[in-house]
């Protein structure tokens, strides 16, 4: 590509390298660093004057940091007199927040669009926006690419071909019906729809489900195989999905309450130091995304903020192999403080007041966070070789204070936390139980057929697994494949898919970065490479050719 530079942010380097490979270019050199006060700084390593700049940055588990990084890169390119700046976001962050929920919701997707525009982006390339109307949030052109042709071809080649049974595409909620009919039309198959009837009468909760879980499950036996025993002792379905939450909460409750209340903070730190090496190692190597979130508060406690930049090259002990200085080494210097993410996470979650205003349809997604956190911890303890890290919301200094003894006491003494002031944007946890009691109906027929359970993204899989169970147990499906464009899989999501007997495979594209440790440990995860589509879109964009060819067909 003449007169073009492709830069990559730190969110999804593997994808960026694949895209660059397809385009036959090298990633342009860029240095992305952090000041010790955790501000991001960008240094474009080559001239972009009068060049077309492409910046590839996907959403990730550290969305805010990577979004900020993208904005700063755009701004840097703008100030460096780039001719045109195109932001390539395979997974658009905040795309689920594309409309006002019934009451007073923010349209954060629009905010991100505004931020990109204001920072100087001239064009956006993204993929499978949660709502295609989002392209109207921008005043600049947006190319919303589709993974459907790629997924459809993979399914045709690998599922439909060589299988005698018919295939049905199934939506797990009514909102996905259109997506499902589109894929069914393309594959020439039947489709069906699962409808979950959320009886509004089951809410609101007087206390947060997380608190309930902490109480009811505190005395359960603990041990390396606790997860397995908990899972087997409870009927499959409802309780199985709930058990990781309960177990994780239990573990943490013990850890927390063991700490002397006189000096809980320091005691907790000491305790944490013991595990610290393991955890730090695990996080640093496998989960750099978690490392992004290492407690700013602790950082501030333990050393003063220095104005000078941490030099990554020095930290890495040499320059990285490729032409760019990116992420493996980026956060190493910050890892010192990364000791007790698991505890703090759960506490912050627990401290969150239940949000009764929450839209029942979307509350499920929100409730996932706590389950992820708890289950993530559990998996971390349970697995011998591999450790899964816990996704941690960026703790604000205010939220950090939730580690103080008072909330801990309140949890153990059984008071619910409704009266606590919201310390940070609420992670709504209302719907965990409610969702379980909902009535599931299948509209359509899947008997003796292979089911493709389709949605645009999959994060925590509980709703997929519930649907898969329903399809297999009550509706006579032959096999269930989960299919989604974006696979987020936070926390222990992949582990839950792995142990679910009703799911054959889960098929996603690689728009969203999943740590290699998790992908290699999962036998059910299939990632389809989407880089050719992105590369072709970039190439066509750069050459002024039509993109619409890609909407129906596969490149290559």
């Amino acid at each position: 590509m003449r007169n073009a530079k492709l830069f990559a942010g730190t969110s999804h380097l593997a994808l960026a390298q694949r895209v660059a490979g397809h385009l036959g270019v090298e990633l342009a050199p860029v240095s992305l660093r952090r000041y010790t006060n955790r501000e991001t700084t960008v240094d474009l390593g080559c001239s972009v004057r009068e060049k077309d700049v492409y910046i590839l940055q996907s959403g990730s588990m550290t969305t805010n940091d990577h979004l900020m990084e993208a904005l700063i890169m755009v701004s840097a390119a703008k100030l460096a007199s780039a001719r045109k700046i195109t932001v390539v976001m395979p997974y658009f962050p905040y795309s689920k927040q594309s409309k006002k929920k019934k009451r007073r919701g923010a349209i954060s997707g629009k905010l991100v669009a505004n931020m990109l525009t204001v920072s100087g982006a001239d064009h956006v390339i993204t993929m499978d926006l949660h709502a295609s109307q989002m392209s109207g949030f921008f005043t600049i052109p947006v190319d919303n690419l589709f993974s459907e042709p790629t997924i459809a071809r993979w399914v045709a080649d690998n599922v439909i071909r060589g299988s005698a049974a018919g295939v049905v595409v199934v939506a797990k909620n009514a909102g996905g019906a259109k997506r499902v009919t589109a894929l069914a039309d393309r594959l020439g198959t039947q489709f069906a729809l699962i409808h979950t009837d959320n009886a509004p009468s089951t809410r609101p909760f007087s206390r947060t489900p997380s608190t309930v879980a902490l109480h009811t499950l505190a005395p359960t036996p603990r041990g390396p195989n606790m997860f397995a025993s908990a899972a087997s002792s409870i009927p499959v379905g409802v309780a199985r999905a709930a058990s990781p939450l309960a177990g994780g909460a239990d573990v943490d409750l013990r850890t927390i309450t063991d700490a002397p209340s006189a000096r809980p903070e320091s005691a907790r730190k000491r305790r944490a130091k013991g595990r610290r090496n393991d955890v730090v190692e695990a996080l640093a190597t496998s989960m750099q995304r978690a490392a992004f979130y290492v407690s700013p508060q602790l950082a501030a406690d333990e050393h003063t903020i220095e104005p000078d930049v941490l030099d990554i090259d020095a930290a890495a002990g040499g320059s990285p192999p490729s032409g760019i200085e990116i992420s493996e080494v980026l956060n190493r210097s910050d890892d010192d403080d990364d000791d007790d993410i698991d505890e703090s996470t759960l506490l912050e979650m627990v401290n969150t007041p239940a949000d009764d205003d929450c839209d029942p349809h979307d509350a499920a997604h929100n409730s996932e966070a706590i389950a992820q956190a708890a289950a993530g911890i559990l998996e971390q303890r349970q697995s011998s070789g591999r450790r899964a890290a816990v996704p941690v919301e960026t703790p604000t200094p205010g939220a950090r204070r939730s580690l103080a003894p008072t909330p801990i006491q309140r949890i153990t003494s059984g008071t619910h936390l409704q009266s606590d002031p919201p310390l940070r944007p609420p992670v709504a946890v209302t719907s965990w139980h409610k969702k379980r009691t909902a009535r599931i109906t299948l509209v359509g027929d899947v008997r003796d057929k292979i089911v493709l359970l389709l949605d645009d993204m999959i994060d925590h899989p509980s709703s997929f697994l519930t649907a898969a169970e329903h399809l297999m147990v009550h509706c006579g499906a032959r096999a269930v494949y989960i299919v989604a464009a974006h696979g987020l899989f936070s926390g222990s999501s992949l582990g839950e898919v792995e142990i679910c007997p009703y799911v054959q495979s889960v098929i996603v594209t690689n728009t969203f970065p999943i740590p290699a440790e998790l992908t290699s440990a999962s036998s059910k995860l299939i990632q389809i490479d989407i880089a050719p589509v992105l590369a072709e879109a970039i190439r066509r964009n750069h050459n002024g050719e039509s993109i619409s060819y890609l909407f129906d067909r596969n490149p290559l």
Partner: protein
Amino acid sequence: MSSNSIRILAGNSHPALARLIAKRLGTDLANVTVAKYSNQETAVTIGESVRDEDVYIIQSGCGEINDHLMELLIMINACKTASARRITAVLPCFPYARQDKKDKSRAPISAKLVANMLSVAGADHVITMDLHASQIQGFFDCPVDNLYGEPMVLRYIRENVPDWKSAIIVSPDAGGAKRATSIADHLDLDFALIHKERKKANEVSRMVLVGDVRDKIAILVDDMADTCGTLGLAAKTLMDNGASAVYAIVIHGVLSGKALDVINNSMLTRVVVTNTIPHAEKKKICPKLDTIDVSAVLAEAIRRTHNGESVSYLFGHATI
């Protein structure tokens, strides 16, 4: 000295609805003349002072849609330059709402353009109803209150559909499945889906019904009915599949083109629309049409906005 009182202005699109709203608010429509010059330019005269007033301009997207949009923009601008304190555009049916995404290559997002035009003209707030996609709220930089006709639809079904407890809610296309399931949930009814298979070369598009409607009253639910081709075909599909009767309930009844013929000749028992769009004349031709009055919810939303009260109550409750 009365300061910051409410002023209701109406364009030419739907004076009947505007009068109903004003009546419910216990006020009169402000004196506005909207006419055309002989060269077809729109001319607006605001006949009374709106200085420091809270102005609500009611204009629906229907009929001569571009003329009506232009009227609205000019009225907003006239009020802006006349020092109105706040200008709220009340659009019971948002024009160009269906052009909300690039569904085809090079398709314009005209809804976004309309949003920009309203903002540029000087609207501070927008009240509308059952947007085709709620993401349109994100097209604006000013607050948008998207009201829902659903509570009124639920009430209509409970009060006017005989034996509604054995009915089934049907969505005539996949995109409306969410709306249909929501209504089915509230009434505790079953739900079904009709999908029109994508047209292939030399093949007539086929309708596939997913769900069982045998011996039930099928209630088709959608946000908008234009030419009613889909509704007519859907009704036929439902009757072929053994439905005992077919109702259609639609929020925005555009009913353009051959819609009335299609309805009259279809197997639809009744087509129910709200009065976000005027259809008094059409009712004379088509006896199957029935109306749900939504002026109450619009009036209440205006009242609550004016008084700084929460509007979200209206999302789940029908007003009287």
